[in-house]
């Protein structure tokens, strides 16, 4: 398939895990761990999908999401948000900001991969 994924996450072990899972299925994976420059990174790379952590240094996931959705180019970009905060309010905030799928850590590998596949198919 060769689709292009940008993974915005600051926990190295989680980056390692997700990167392993995606590359194994033939995805091209780029990683980025700074929240403050995440939007620029998306603009520059124009990925097919963004996996976005909620808590990032510099700027949190909701703000990044809001900023991306404000850009006409990315209104339909599939964005999967992951959070470890596990609070109902966060899901609400993310959905209002226009998230494509919201998932609470810890997730099962199958769950993540299914979500990623669904999102990319839906976008096509």
């Amino acid at each position, binding site marked *: 398939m060769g689709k292009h994924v940008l993974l915005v996450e600051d926990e190295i*072990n*989680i980056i390692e*895990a997700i990167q392993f899972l995606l590359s194994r299925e033939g995805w091209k994976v780029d990683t980025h761990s700074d929240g403050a420059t995440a939007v620029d990174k998306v603009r520059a790379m124009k990925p097919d999908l963004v996996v976005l952590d909620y808590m990032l240094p510099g700027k949190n996931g909701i703000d990044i999401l809001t900023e991306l959705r404000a850009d006409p180019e990315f209104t339909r970009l599939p964005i999967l948000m992951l959070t*470890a905060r596990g609070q109902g309010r966060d899901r609400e905030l993310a959905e209002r900001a226009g998230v494509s799928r919201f998932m609470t850590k*810890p*997730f099962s*590998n*199958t769950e993540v991969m299914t979500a990623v596949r669904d999102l990319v198919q839906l976008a096509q």
Partner: protein
Amino acid sequence: MISVNQLLGVSLVYVAFLFAIAFFAERASIRGKGSWLRSPTVYTLSLSIYCTAWTFYGAVGYAARSGMEFVTIYLGPSLVMIGWWWVLRKLVRIGRAQRATSVADLISARYGKSNLLAIVVTVMAVIGVTPYIALQLQSVTLSLSIFSETGQPDSLSQQTAAFWVAGGLVLFTVLFGTRNLNANERHDGVVIAIAVEAVVKLVALLAVGIFVVWGIAGGIGPMMERIDNSSIGEWSMDRSRWAALTMLSAAAFLALPRMFQVMVVENEDERHLQIASWAFPLYLMLMSLFVVPIAVVGLDILPAGSNPDLFVLTVPLAEGQGGLATLSFLGGFSSATSMVIVATLALSTMVSNHVVMPVWLSTQAEGAQVSGDVRNVVILARRASILMIIFFGYIYYRLSGGGAALAAIGLISFVGVAQFLPAMLGGIFWRGATRWGALTGLLVGFAVWVFSSLLPSFGPDAVLSAAVFEQGIGGLPWLRPQALFGIEGIDPTVHAMVWSLSLNTAVFIAVSLVTFPTPLERLQGAQFVNIFDHSTQARGWDAALATSEDLMIMAQRILGPADALALFRAEAQRQGLTGHLPEPTQGFLQTLERELAGSVGSATAHAMISQLVGGTSVSVEDLMAVADESAQILEYSNRLEAKSAELSRTARQLREANQKLTALSVQKDAFLGQISHELRTPMTSIRSFSEILRDTDKLDQADKTKYASIIHGETIRLTRLLDDLLDLSVLENGQVSLNLEHGNLHAVIERALLSAGGAHTTPLRIDHVGADTDVPLCTDLDRLRQVFINLITNAQKYCTAAEPSLTVTVLQHNGGLQVVFHDNGTPIPADARALIFEKFSRINDKDGSGAGLGLAICREIMARLGGDITYESRADGNAFIVHLPGQVALAAQ
């Protein structure tokens, strides 16, 4: 020549005639046929008691001694009557509205019915008027002595005569002044008698004057020549004395108790004042018309050394005019008696009402206050007061030796009673005037008067020693009675007047400004100052429509327009009238009063209605009730205010508690979010990699090992996190028990370095300064070591320098100790410094191994140990400073 006996006979007949007039006037008045007694003419003539024997005899003497200055005594009252007519009208209106019976009553009523003030005014009035009464006795006895066989004043017979004259005056005053008790303190008989006397004295003086001008001088022309050639013609005016005396006589005219009696108390109709305002100055002008001619002729034809005070008598006698001299004597006699009678009457009212009665009532059981009882006591008190006052006058006459010039004695009295003026005028024009202002002003003015005028009048060494006159009290030159504050060379009368009145006024104003009036004083102040707004002299009670309208306006203000209109319309319909204005019948007024009482209280409602309808002003009882109501309302509102303050305090506390709870709740949410994040993050890795290991068949050994060690590392991280959280929770809840031990600070640091184990595994170079010094201390050594380990591992983790180093130094500071951990890493950004000791704050946490709880735990531990931990940014790195308090260090020594 007329003998003294003949003269006494004439006097007796004249007195009998006065008795008869007074008696018939009283009878007519009681029968209700006395309206003629209360005409403007009688009112104007009664005012002439201002002209006493002093003016009758003394004016001529004054002119002979001091030229035209005597005019000031007439000028003051005339100016008041003409120019200050409106002040008099206000005074009369207030006096009548308040039913004031005397000056004392008026002043006390104004200042909240203060009995203390009434007593002070009464005592001052008695003392102030005493010289005046003595003056009358003196003038009558002097004039009698002229007719005696020897023609020379004989001191013994004079004193006897003075005694009998005093006795006669007591008798007349008692008979006509206290025959009955009238609620309004009016005395028809007395007033008509003094009106007759006013005519007699005017006729007598005019007769002597006409005789002098046309009988002796030979007409107006020659008379004017004589005047021009006399010493009086050469008289030059002393401006300051002229102005001061004019002012003084004006003040006395307003403040003299006897003037208040005839002008206000005996006033039947306010409109009489309008006529008196021109008629009385005219009377005064006639009285003064022939003063100068009589004085000039007297000086011309009588031997040098003759008493000029008696020229009115001696000039006709010298010309052999016995009949004219007798008439003149009667004129003088009239002047003296009318003044004494009215003055005594006024004073006795004050003494009995304000001194005797309160004392008597306070000694009585309540049951004894039956009206008949009180009546007799009042009459008895009046009579005793009359006797006492005239006796005082007699004593003063004896003490002062009867030698002083008449005018001089009169002026002493004038200055004395003028002290009432600031309190009176202040009271009717200034709402800010207070009881204490009036009281202190009066007392100060009075004291100055007694010292600078009354006591000196007895002469040196009589009361005040000559030394006091020369050197002042206690040798203080500024306390000389006739040169107060060292100001010399002023005429004694002007001196006494200026000092007493100006100090009186100044104290009155100053004290009024710094004291606060009582509610009743406020009400009375408003009643007095705004008398023309409140009283209803001009409004007729028969004008029912106007009254209804007024009632309507008042009701609208209190009940609101709609309710008031409904009430009035309903009543009008009930009365069978069209429109909305009913007749103000008794029943309606009662209904209205009830309605108003619901809003403003019954006393106020009653006072308001009676003001509009009754024509009477508000009574003292009404005012008291109003004051009580106001006080109650005030108290109620104070309570409400206190309640509302309490409520708002509670509300504020609740708001603060709520804010605190909200903040706590936000903190709790943030904390839970953080905990969740810290727990879920390693779990995510563990789950993900364990699934990978489970589900992936073709993993090489290296990957397997790598993923297993990740899982291993993350479980350690989780365990450490749980340990930290529990530790922090224990510390924060204060459940931690400290294990106090003695030890050496450097040994603790050394062990921490070992535990951190960094010295050989990381590139961080650690320099422990003074490691072998002994710094004893007593604290929980394990906990302190935990803090040190934390700081050391932080330095190991986060020090980013190329050659990382950490220096540990111990400092003595203010009796305590400081352990400084100084690394050479990049200083923490300024905006993050405030947060580093907060939970879950991870600055520069590259590998994510820390939960951000370490420094928070350190801070909690140091707080438990009684110390603190702070951060300082240094030019070459970061410094964490552990502060140990004095007692930790000292305990070991």
